[in-house]
């Protein structure tokens, strides 16, 4: 958290020994911005980025009366710990968060699996099959990332209404899958192109067709890329508000957590015990996924991408 380097303990004892690369780097860091100001700034940013979340999470465990009458930083003066807020939010009569929690899961899984599968196939075709107008088509798909989803919402909705499945899970699954495709194809195509062509050539010489090459040669090598985009898409779908609000907002049977939490904030903006617990519940799943698979997510981010 600070730029002050660790005091090099081996230095006096192992004087003549060459410093390891890490220690060298640490020593270099000293020549960078290693003033107390710099350390202070870093700590200040870190605190500013953590305290708001911490405050809300802490508050979600405080009794309702305490939340509404004093700040969470006075907890040492006004101690109290309870799971009542969670109980009320999850199983309480009017809100029933458990329903929305289930909806979120039911929405998210297919909305991650379907676009990844389709994008993998398309990316394979763009990367390793020769066919006319291939580059032109790829650029066209890539360019579709520009389209903001707002542009598509109303015509899509009216089409769903016409086909008689508006307000069902199908609309949300289909919409999320469609919106994910351009970026997914672009990212997975990039990863696929990184695989040495000689590998695919060798498989071809052995007589493997495209389907065999796809499953036996490429897929095992693409696991990190798939994980990267999978987490990306998972977080995006789980955290999405606009798509859910448009296609599933009116039906509590389909609406996910984000819709419910946003609604609570609008209609019962002063019920802080409910809001805190609700927000905490909606945060916990993406946080777990994110923390356990962070490495892949960062890799996906670095591969670049703009999501519409």
């Amino acid at each position, binding site marked *: 958290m600070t730029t002050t380097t660790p005091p090099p303990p081996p230095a006096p004892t192992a004087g003549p020994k060459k410093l390891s690369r890490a220690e060298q780097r640490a020593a270099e860091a000293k*020549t960078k911005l290693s003033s107390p100001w710099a350390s202070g700034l870093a700590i200040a940013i870190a605190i500013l980025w953590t305290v708001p979340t911490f*405050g809300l999470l802490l508050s979600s465990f405080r009794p309702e009366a305490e939340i509404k009458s004093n700040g969470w930083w006075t907890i040492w003066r006004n101690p109290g710990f309870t799971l009542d807020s969670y109980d009320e939010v999850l199983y309480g009569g009017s809100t029933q968060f458990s329903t929305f929690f*289930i909806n979120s899961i039911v929405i998210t899984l297919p909305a991650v699996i379907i676009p990844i599968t389709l994008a993998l196939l398309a990316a394979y075709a763009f990367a390793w*099959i020769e066919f006319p107008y291939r580059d032109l088509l790829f650029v066209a798909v890539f360019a579709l990332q*520009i389209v903001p989803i707002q542009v598509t919402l109303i015509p899509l909705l009216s*089409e769903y209404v016409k086909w008689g499945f508006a307000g069902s899970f199908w609309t949300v699954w289909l919409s999320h899958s469609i919106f994910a495709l351009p970026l997914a194809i672009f990212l997975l195509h990039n990863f696929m192109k990184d695989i040495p062509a000689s590998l695919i050539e060798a498989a071809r010489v052995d007589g493997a067709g495209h389907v065999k090459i796809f499953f036996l040669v490429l897929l095992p090598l693409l696991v990190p890329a798939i994980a990267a985009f999978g987490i990306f898409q998972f*977080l995006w779908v789980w955290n999405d508000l606009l798509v859910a609000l*448009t296609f599933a907002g009116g039906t509590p049977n389909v609406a996910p957590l984000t819709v419910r939490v*946003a609604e609570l904030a609008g209609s019962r903006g002063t019920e802080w015990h409910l809001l805190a617990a609700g927000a905490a519940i909606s945060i916990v799943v993406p946080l777990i996924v994110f923390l356990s698979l962070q490495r892949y997510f960062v890799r996906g981010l670095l591969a670049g991408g703009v999501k519409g």
Partner: protein
Amino acid sequence: MSDNDPDRPDVGSGSTATALREDVPVAAPRPKEGSPVWTGVLVALGAVTVIGILVVVASLAGLWTPEFDWPSWLVSSVTAVEKFGLMFFAIILFVVVMSLILLAVDRARGVRNWMVALAFLAPMGLMLVFGLIYPGLRTMRESFFDRTSTNYVGFDNYATLFTEDIFQTVLRNTAIWVFIVPIVATLIGLVYAVLVDRTRFEALAKGLIFLPMAISMVGASIIWKFVYEYRPDQEGVEQIGLANQLLVWAGREPYQFLITSPLNTFFLIVVMIWIQSGFAMTVLSAAIKAIPDDIVEAARIDGVSGLGMFRYVTVPSIRPALVVVLTTISITTLKVFDIVRTMTGGNFNTSVVANEFYTQSFRQFNVGLGAALAVVLFVLVIPIVVYNVRQLRLSEDVR
């Protein structure tokens, strides 16, 4: 199909592979002999797809109105069991269809390269046409029609957008967002990345800043709404929002952060910066680590250090990554919706284009105006994306 097929009993996973190894010359990877059954499946799949396309096109063109009476378990599930059942049904259906396509392409007779490509690309192509291209074009058309999409009104909707006061505020707010968020978030991300680079707590320190990325914008909005919470300045009333408590500790009056215009827009912007800095920090940190050691070394020998190193070595070296981060955050910011919707609902002069689009389309039911707002968003995004793509190409070496 199978009646006139002498090879029928041979159909199986092994047959194609054996055939391939024995009599296909090395240069021709596609099997010459395939199973007639799978050829039939392939033809059937193609036929179903074509019929499906015709039906959808007829519906889109308004030539035919689909009237399906879906079974209720398919379109309305109430209990958890029904929902999970439907979910697994959908996933299995998808897997079965995709397996059929792949097997048919693999096993059928006389499959050419372009046919494989078509089979691989058709599902996503149809979805993109149905879900992005067609709706996009229709929205553009609707932006020239009135609130119910019945009468052509020319550029009236756009005229309204650029003349009426409330939309002036919306456009001004969007401009403020797009100007401030990318610059400040990138700056914080960059400074922080440099500060924690190669320190003992680097992983932890980066994780803390990065965490808001995992939280939904709705969740982040609630978190900050709580920080901004206002309690009237009376005897015996304690502040429960941290921001106002800080003001009180500093001897100031508590402040209505989200209601007092025009500064409330800036307090919403803080939330977006809070979310986006982590992204900037991650990408820039990777770029910083990719700076070749010898450049840093050479600069150090020349006596450059501290701020000089930052200004003359770090920043120029990661310029392409900086541009990518700036443009990416700009695009995200242009489309910001969740924060405004959750924190103020667009009230108190805080609305932005993406939120106003939602309000006009789904609350005011003014389809024409909503469409015009969406098109404005589209037009604003295009130049940034084009620039971003060009920079992405340039920066590929850096990352």
